[in-house]
């Protein structure tokens, strides 16, 4: 039977746990960031539409 390389076992164990957490944490940050940017852009567009609609209505009334 082959002798177990315990230093390798510990390396796989440690780097695995830490690695998964780091990747998922990074993904969490990027997901939050991207959704906030999209929220900001979408809200800005919504505001623009809300502002532009009354102006168009006023212009129509004037005409």
């Amino acid at each position, binding site marked *: 039977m*082959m002798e*177990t390389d315990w230093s390798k*076992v510990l390396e796989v*164990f440690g780097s695995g746990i830490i690695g998964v*957490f780091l*990747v998922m944490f990074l993904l969490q940050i990027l997901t939050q960031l991207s959704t906030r940017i*999209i929220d900001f852009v979408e809200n800005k567009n919504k505001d623009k539409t809300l502002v532009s609609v009354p102006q168009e209505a006023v212009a129509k009334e004037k005409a």
Partner: protein
Amino acid sequence: MFDILRELIFTSGFVSLSGGNIIMWMISFVLLYLAIKKQYEPLLLLPIAFGILVVNLPLTFLMDPEHGLIWFFYHYGIELDIIPPLIFLGLGAMIDFGPLIANPKTLLLGAGAQAGLYVTFFAAVLFGFDLQEAGSIAIIGGADGPTTIYLTSKLAPHLLGATAVSAYAYMALVPIIQPPMMKLLTTDAERKIVMTKLRPVSKLQKICFPIVTAMTIMLVVPPAAPLISMLMLGNLFKESGVVERLTNAASNELMNVVTIFLGLSIGATMTAATFLSPKVLFIFFLGLFAFAISTGAGLLMAKFMNLFLKDKINPLIGAAGVSAVPMAARCVHKVGSEANRRNYLLMYAMGPNVAGVIGTVVAAAILLKNLG
């Protein structure tokens, strides 16, 4: 006439039949029973069971390299890593990442559940398995069939049948394995926690998620590329809403076709010579251990997160951090509603559940990087 009859008998499979073959038939019949009568993961267990049966009929040579019919399915589908990524393409086209995008914190629950996988890796080494075998056994804890098959085919192909059957069997047994762990590791008050409403997720956010995720994971852990790229492509098909035909093809026709080849190939690896060994029993035991520990790790992760969160999460949703979509989320919902009838946890649990799929792929890629 007598000579013809004698030749027929001596060239038939009967003369080459061994006790091991008959035991494998019995195993096949049990799996057929579970698939047909009990409906435990029948889409996979049925072709697996039939694969076991036919490959253990002597002189059929179905798994003969370069000649056997099923060997071609196995070689091109699994050895060359075609089928598991295609299954992920179909899976991506079916998954809704909305609950995860609405509550990205649940990604950490998907990571927490993977801790159990590494504990099992350690345990498997203690039981005498070599590092590659231990990695293949540990991934069972992720409760993700295609990822288990993908990793095992790379690290320890001789264990493929045992790890795949173990993963699918425990996925089917989620409603039996998980509730005792949930009740053991949470208090009644914790199970009653009602979570705050999930925020709405826009279409653009759902479209951006697979792109951001694919880029992030493939840049950080390149060995995850085959699985994660297909998963996210399938999801992009679905969320873009412009390729309905491709979405349907990926989630229905393609998925069904590759499932047949996958099941049959996995079953066909389970010959008496490879399957009937004490090691296989240990694999089933360690697989169960992995699954239970991963469930526990997810629950404890949720409890740990509650120490820092203003809006507490119901720790039960941590148990859905193992993949097994959507069985684990349904199980969380059931246990949660038993504690508090007004608690509707299904959507909250879907977040960590789909995070678990991503987490298992990342964990498998890291194992592959270290052991491959």
